[in-house]
């Protein structure tokens, strides 16, 4: 798969689709900049993670098969989310393990699936050029990207090359923000307590921008910052910066 212009299937993810399309369009733009031709399969809905994490294996399996079938034709599958991609890459093969044919198909799709930042940096060797975003930012490493996919240095490497952008160290940068999908709604008190630690640590950096590469986590942190009245901190997905599209409002509405 060393095509000059690989054909990428974009897994938009249900949250980006419904809540913040900008992240999807930024991803699209970056993929094209990185020399890919991009398709957005129309049959995609959701990767099935909420079902999987609720214990609804049957429902999760049905959705997994649909995603596998929809994305099989492409050279690569790319998503702007570590947790959705982690579901595809690490959980589908295990979820479909009892059906050898499906398991094989799931493994093939898993093998060519990438989270956008690691795809740009590792597979496409892409670097931002002439991108400017003057800010003092800090970076939260989202759990699934970090621990299921091993993404840590890749995003920082890309962001380093953005003009005017300084990344300040964040205490507890790899600690969970307390989102956890449906956890945030099922156990709101705990979830809120965990995210208050995160916002406290973010505020302590003195940064004016928070970056993290998963919309669920971004909504959680932004929601807490907003509730605390921290209107001085803007919240973006890194692809919005890299694509030069972070000129509008951030996730926290500012």
């Amino acid at each position, binding site marked *: 798969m060393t095509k000059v212009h690989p054909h990428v299937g974009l897994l*938009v993810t*249900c949250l980006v*689709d*419904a*809540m*913040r*399309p*900008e992240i*999807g*369009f930024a991803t699209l733009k970056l993929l094209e900049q990185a020399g890919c031709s991009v398709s*957005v399969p*129309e049959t995609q*809905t*959701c990767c*099935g993670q*909420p*079902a999987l*994490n*609720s*214990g*609804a*294996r049957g429902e*999760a399996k*049905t*959705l997994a098969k649909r995603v596998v079938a929809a994305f099989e034709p492409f050279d690569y599958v790319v998503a702007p989310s570590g947790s959705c991609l982690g579901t595809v890459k690490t959980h589908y093969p295990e979820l479909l393990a009892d059906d050898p044919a499906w398991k094989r198909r799931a493994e093939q799709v898993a093998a060519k699936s990438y989270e956008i930042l690691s795809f740009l940096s590792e597979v496409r060797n892409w670097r931002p050029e002439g991108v400017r975003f003057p800010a003092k930012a800090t970076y939260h490493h989202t*759990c699934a990207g*970090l*621990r299921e996919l091993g993404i840590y240095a890749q995003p920082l490497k890309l962001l380093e090359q953005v003009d005017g952008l300084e990344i300040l160290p964040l205490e507890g940068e790899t*600690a*969970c923000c*307390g*989102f*956890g*999908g*449906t*956890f*945030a*709604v*099922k*156990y*709101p*008190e*705990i*979830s*809120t*307590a*965990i*995210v208050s*630690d995160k916002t406290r640590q973010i505020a302590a950096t003195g940064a004016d921008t928070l970056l993290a590469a998963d919309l669920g986590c971004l*909504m*959680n942190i*932004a*929601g*807490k910052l*907003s*509730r605390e009245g921290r209107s001085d901190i803007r919240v973006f997905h890194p692809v919005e910066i890299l694509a030069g599209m972070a000129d*509008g409002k951030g996730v*926290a*509405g*500012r």
Partner: protein
Amino acid sequence: MSTALRSPANFKRDAAEAVTKPSLKIALDRTTGLLQRRRVDVLKAYPEFEATREVAKNIKDHTLAHLDHYLAEFEKNATAAGAVVHWAETPEQACKIVIDLCRQADAKSVTRVKSMLGEEIGLPKALAAAGIERVETDLAEHIIQLADEPPSHIVIPAMHKTREEVADLFAHHHKEPKIDGEVGTLVESARGELRPKYVAADVGISGANFLIASTGTVVTVTNEGNAELTTELPGMHIVTAGIEKVVPEPQHALVLLRLLARSALGTEFTQYTSFFTGPRREDETTGPEAMHIVLVDNGRTQMLASEMRPMLRCIRCAACINHCPVYGAIGGHPYGSTYPGPMGSVLTPALQSLEVAKDLPHACTLNGRCQEVCPVKIPLPDLIRSLRDDTWRRNLVPKPAKLAVQAWAWVAVRPSLYRLVSGLANYALRLWAGPRGMIAKLPLAGGWTQGRDFPRPTGPTFMTQYKRRQGR
């Protein structure tokens, strides 16, 4: 929270209450933060950690696969050394054996070294019911005994207590309390209080960190030196241990010991590591005349036969607990069990029942940090997921939640319908938000907006906008 009221069935309520206690938060932050940093530091000087984890995992897996073989070997060698080995299937049986032994020794007072197995089987309560005075010698256990509270952590049972709270307790309960705001002085106060009680005890009860099959040896580790004082002075030493504690040979225990101290407290080695093999020998004039070892099943053989088997590799280091964000927010008590945090969320359903502990596997963000730090590589998130599957299958998930997931999944396999529904939801949210960027109150998502705002969608859905751009 008194011991009687705790049950994992009250998890939601107790957790919601716990996050409102400022002193708990202070205690947890001070402690888990320090333990995390120490662990990182000690592992910097131990690049062999990863290789050792793999060896440790293999040792435990091998032993578990041949558990009956090794238990028989342990029994044979411990008996040859003069110890008596007892077997208990349930907590009740285990407690009865211990109480009968205490009666046999005509015991009025027993000293105890912290043992989570002892807590698990409810030994403190059983001793009280039998009218036997129990002296907890581990400092943390001493503190919570005075406070009449259950442990909230498996290595530092009084983790939920600040030094100020401990000072209050000692001021009330110690004969000659020493208090001046320093932790060192509090330790001094406890030393003075406990020393005479070691000498007066009739029976010493300990747990075991490892059982060595090839020599019939019980291994304990403490930092305080209380295991040796507890077991050496009285005439009888009783050990209670789970059957999964056995390892084949001393060399295997050494590998696990290297991991245990580093993972638990961020130190190279525990201060006192003792190997007990049988009771007082003929040529000795000190040491207990009798040694009894009570081996407890309590659900372990069932775990062995299930998907939960990897959990039996656990060496009770608490690294998963110290790195768990949920534990860090609520402490150990809401888990309603001897075992809190990630390891507890897997163990408690097995030791009690999934029915009462049905919240525990769900009260987890699946962030994966626990697995990352576990020295014996237990795939805790996978086990937690698997328990969630069980709650779903066995109808232990609340009806509305189950229906919501089912309805949503039903829609998600119908793309055109899904587009319609997500488009409507998107539109409704924007309408509800009006011109504001953030939503402070959201019907049906009260949980979320109780402590956080919810973002307003920035425009129509991606799919809608994308189609428009494609000119369709």
